[in-house]
């Protein structure tokens, strides 16, 4: 997951301000050192110090008040969610592109009744009881994750090509926002 919670508590907002301050400080220090080295205009250490100071000033401007911190946080969340959905859409297109290219090599689906056969129906072996509800006909092993089941399904089903889609699926899972769009109601609780 690459996005921050939408409905954040105060300590998340504070943590965000600290994290961004640290990142601004480090990146400005590196930029400062890089510029002074490239331009040969002084010691890279001094450049790094000036850059770090600039980073601190910038974060002080961004996060001066609680309201400013909250606004910066909300802005970041909106931006990152938009980026997340764009990246997810882009990766989905790549993923389907791979599937489409692999599909050029033919399909395993038998859509026509074989010659001489009276039916295209085949007996289905029962799946293990613990696999009921599983999307791939095999039991899900708790704690083992979906990758093992996916790979096993690829080998057993004869679709080894699906392994080349795996990195894209993993990336898609990483960039997609897992957060649900709803949050708890105003339930007044004492304990």
């Amino acid at each position, binding site marked *: 997951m690459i996005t*921050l919670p939408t409905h954040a508590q105060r*300590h998340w907002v504070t943590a965000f301000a600290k994290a961004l301050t640290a990142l601004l400080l480090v990146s400005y220090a590196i930029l400062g050192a890089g510029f002074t080295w490239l331009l040969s205009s002084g010691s890279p250490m001094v450049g790094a110090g000036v850059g770090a100071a600039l980073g601190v000033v910038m974060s002080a401007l961004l996060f001066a008040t609680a309201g400013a911190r909250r606004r910066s946080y909300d802005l970041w969340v909106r931006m990152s969610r938009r980026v997340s959905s764009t990246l997810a859409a882009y990766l989905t297109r790549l993923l389907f592109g791979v599937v489409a290219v692999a599909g050029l090599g033919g399909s395993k689906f038998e859509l026509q009744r074989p010659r001489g056969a009276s039916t295209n129906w085949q007996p289905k072996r029962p799946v293990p009881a613990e696999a009921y509800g599983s999307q791939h006909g095999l039991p899900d092993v708790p704690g083992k994750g979906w990758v093992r089941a996916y790979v096993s399904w690829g080998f057993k089903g004869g679709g080894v090509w699906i392994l080349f889609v795996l*990195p894209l699926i993993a990336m898609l899972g990483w960039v997609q926002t897992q957060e649900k769009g709803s949050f708890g109601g105003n339930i007044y609780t004492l304990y």
Partner: protein
Amino acid sequence: MIRTLLALIAGALALVLALPAMLVALGLWIVRAITARLADAAAPQLVEGDPFVQFDPEVGWTPRPNLSTHATDLNGDFFHFTTDQDGWRGRGAVEDADVVVFGDSFAFGFGIDDAAFYGNLGREFAIKAVGAPGYNMVQALHWMHALAPKIAGKTLVWFLYPPNDLEDNVRPSMLRYRTPFIRERKGGNGWEKVTHHLSEEPWPFPSRKRHFENYVEICSDSDLSRRVFRASDVLIREAADLARSLECGLVVATVPELSPLAQRQLEEARRQPGAGDGFDASRPDQRIGRTCADLGIPFVALADELSAADYLEKDVHWNAEGHRKVHDVLRRIWTERPPPPSPAEAPEQAQPAARDRPMTRADV
């Protein structure tokens, strides 16, 4: 085989094309990871659930004594608070206080750290808060009686929060928590206080709607409105009589609902079909103010002192600025030192239930 080969080539190309996207995602992930780590480190140890309050057979619940802990407000934000040996917030003991505040979560200071709590601001005079989240006026009045020997001669301030206090006075529970309440005796023969249903068992039925649907009705010309104001009259009158007998100054202060969170819910409730006919948001202040005037009790509408900016962003309670303003109001009250209420005519008090019979729906 050909499919596998095609997938290998297409997959490799797709990975190259995905690289820029991954670099962008990496930047966002770094911010997310550091923020999450810092947020986890900042999260204090929470006391939630039963350790926060404890069951009390006479009043329903009380805050636990000797707490120094964190709790979360309605948005899940942490606040740190301490309670004394009796479970109350504020410096010192009740008997040492100059001003004793009674009420619900506003009196308790729900959602605010000790450092910003109105009862801990300034050293000019001592404030003790005798209140707990969810209390109705019956429970506040209970504590006035119970602490009578300790509060004699002091200035008492009663915070009333009309959006739920008024209705909770006549309901047997606050959500699922059983509360003492008052009801009219059959035949219009006065009011009685009911406590026999109090226990730790959750109340099986929702007593009132969760948001502001009934508050809209209370602010309108309705049967519910007339009933709850009659009940609050009885309770205020009883408090006035008690204050007079203890030679205490008594001030009633209504807490307005100005928080952005609640305003949204209130507007939603007003949009419900049939709701809000004759709605007047100032009705509780006008009605309670009139009762106080009749009883010779000073009345403060905190709506005149507070604004939406004095409330937490995602909770219905006050923020630090709100607490500072409330402290200023209390200082003003303490400086003026109101006299005990003047004698009232035709007292109508809530008496203990005559018999301990099971309640029926008609009773409540």
